[in-house]
C-alpha cells in the first residue's frame, strides 16, 4: 500500500471535484423526489450507473451550479463541515433538511494495482460505488418521509469548520452570487427528528447523510 499525504497530490481538489459532482446530482434528485419543483422540468439521466433525475430548467440549473461553484473552494480547503439542502415551506420555515457531513482523512491511501492508472482507478471505482449507494438511498427516501406542504422552496446552507473561514470573500467567487449568514429561523426547527440515511467511508472521503424533519 502506498500512502500519500495531502501535499503529494492536489488532494483537496480531487475530493472537491468528486464531492461537488455528487452534490449536484444529489440536489437535483432531492428536489425531484421531494417534489419541490414540478416533475415536468426533470429528465431521466444516468450517473454512477444508476438512473437519476436532473432538472432541465436553465435558471434552476444555473442556481445549483453557482452555489456549488462557491462551495467548492471551501471543500478544497477542508473548510466545509456540512452542506445542507433545506426545504422550506411558504413561510420560509424549514420542514426538511438533508445534511451532508463531510470529512477528509489526513492520509490518502492508494492501493497498488496493475491497472492503467495505478491505484487511482480502483480508488475512484470504489468511491463511485459508494456514491451510487448514496444516490439510490435518496431515490427511495420518500418512502420514509411524509409529503411536503405545497409551495415549498429550497436553499443550501454551508456550515464551515472555523469561524475564521467565515470570511465571505472566500465564498463569493462569483460576483453576482453573494452569500450571507443564514437567519436563525432558517436553521432552527421546533421539534427536529433525525433520520440517519447513509454513511460512506472511502480512502479519500468520509460522508454522512441524514434527514432532519420538523414533524413526525
Amino acid at each position, binding site marked *: 500500500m502506498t500512502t500519500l499525504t495531502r501535499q503529494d497530490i492536489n488532494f483537496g481538489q480531487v475530493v472537491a471535484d468528486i464531492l461537488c459532482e455528487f452534490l449536484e446530482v444529489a440536489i437535483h434528485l432531492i428536489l425531484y423526489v421531494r417534489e419541490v419543483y414540478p416533475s415536468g422540468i426533470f429528465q431521466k439521466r444516468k450517473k454512477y450507473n444508476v438512473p437519476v433525475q436532473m432538472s432541465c430548467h436553465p435558471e434552476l440549473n444555473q442556481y445549483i451550479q453557482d452555489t456549488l461553484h462557491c462551495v467548492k473552494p471551501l471543500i478544497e480547503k477542508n473548510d466545509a463541515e456540512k452542506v445542507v439542502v433545506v426545504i422550506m415551506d411558504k413561510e*420560509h420555515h424549514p420542514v426538511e433538511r438533508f445534511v451532508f457531513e463531510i470529512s477528509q482523512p489526513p492520509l490518502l491511501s492508494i492501493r497498488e494495482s496493475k491497472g492503467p492508472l495505478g491505484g487511482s482507478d480502483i480508488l475512484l471505482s470504489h468511491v463511485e460505488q459508494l456514491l451510487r449507494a448514496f444516490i439510490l438511498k435518496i431515490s427511495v427516501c420518500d418512502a420514509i418521509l411524509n409529503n411536503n406542504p405545497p409551495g415549498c422552496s429550497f436553499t443550501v446552507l454551508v456550515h*464551515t469548520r472555523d469561524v475564521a473561514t467565515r470570511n465571505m470573500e472566500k465564498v463569493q467567487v462569483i460576483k453576482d452570487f453573494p452569500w450571507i449568514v443564514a437567519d436563525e429561523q432558517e436553521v432552527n426547527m421546533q421539534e427536529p427528528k433525525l433520520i440517519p440515511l447513509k454513511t460512506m467511508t472511502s480512502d479519500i472521503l468520509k460522508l454522512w447523510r441524514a434527514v432532519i424533519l420538523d414533524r413526525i
Partner: protein
Amino acid sequence: MEDVVLHVRPSACEQLESLLQSTERLLKPFPLRAPPLFKPWFIAANQPLPIRPAKPAPIIKHTPHWLVSEGVAQTKNQSNDVQTAPTSRADGNPSLRSEADHSAVTRCWSVSRTRGDAAHVLPSKCFQRSLSIHRLHPLQRVMWVIGQHNCGTRTLEQVWRSLLRSVRASKMPTCNSNLQHGRAEIWVFCDATQAERVGHRLKKELQLIGRISLSVRRLGHIFSM
C-alpha cells in the same frame, strides 16, 4: 515493558527468527486514535450560523400556458408547461411574488409542440444541394438567424412576440427559438429537412425583410433566403 519469555517447541527451532518477529509485532502497543471533538448535531446557541446564497432559488410553477421568466431564461417540457417566477429580490422572499408581475416580463425561450402542420414537404433542389454539400442529416438541427436588419421598422422584441404567437399556434413544426438579447438576434432552430419551409414561413408570418441566413453548428452559415 517487562521481559517476555517465548517458549518454543524443539521442532520449531528452525523458525525461531520468524517467531521472534511475530512476537515483536504482537507485543507492539495498540495504535491510539484521538477521538474527534464532540460537537452537538443541532446548532447550539454559541455556534455560528451557517451561510447561504443571498439569492433565493427560482420558483417554478405549473401553468396552463407558456412559461414566463424575468429576462433570464425559460424552458418548457412538452408534456408539462412550467413557469418561472421572478427571483430578483436579493433578500429572497419569493412568497411576495405576484401573478401581476408576469405581465412585465419578457420571454426568451420557446419550443413548438410536435403536433400541428408537420406534413413532409420535400425541399427545393437548390436547398437539397446545400444539404448534400455539407452532408447534413435530415434531422440535424439547423438555425435561422433573424437580425434587427430583417425587422424593418419594428423592434426585435415585436418580431419575437409575433414568433411566439406562431410557435404557440404550432405553425413552426420542429422548432424551438431563442431570443439572444446580447447579440440582438433571434435564433430559430429546426430540423434540416424542414429548414426551407420554416424559413419561408418565418419570412411570411413575421413579414421579415432582406435575407435571413441559415447556420449549422461547426459549419457556420450555409444558406440564405
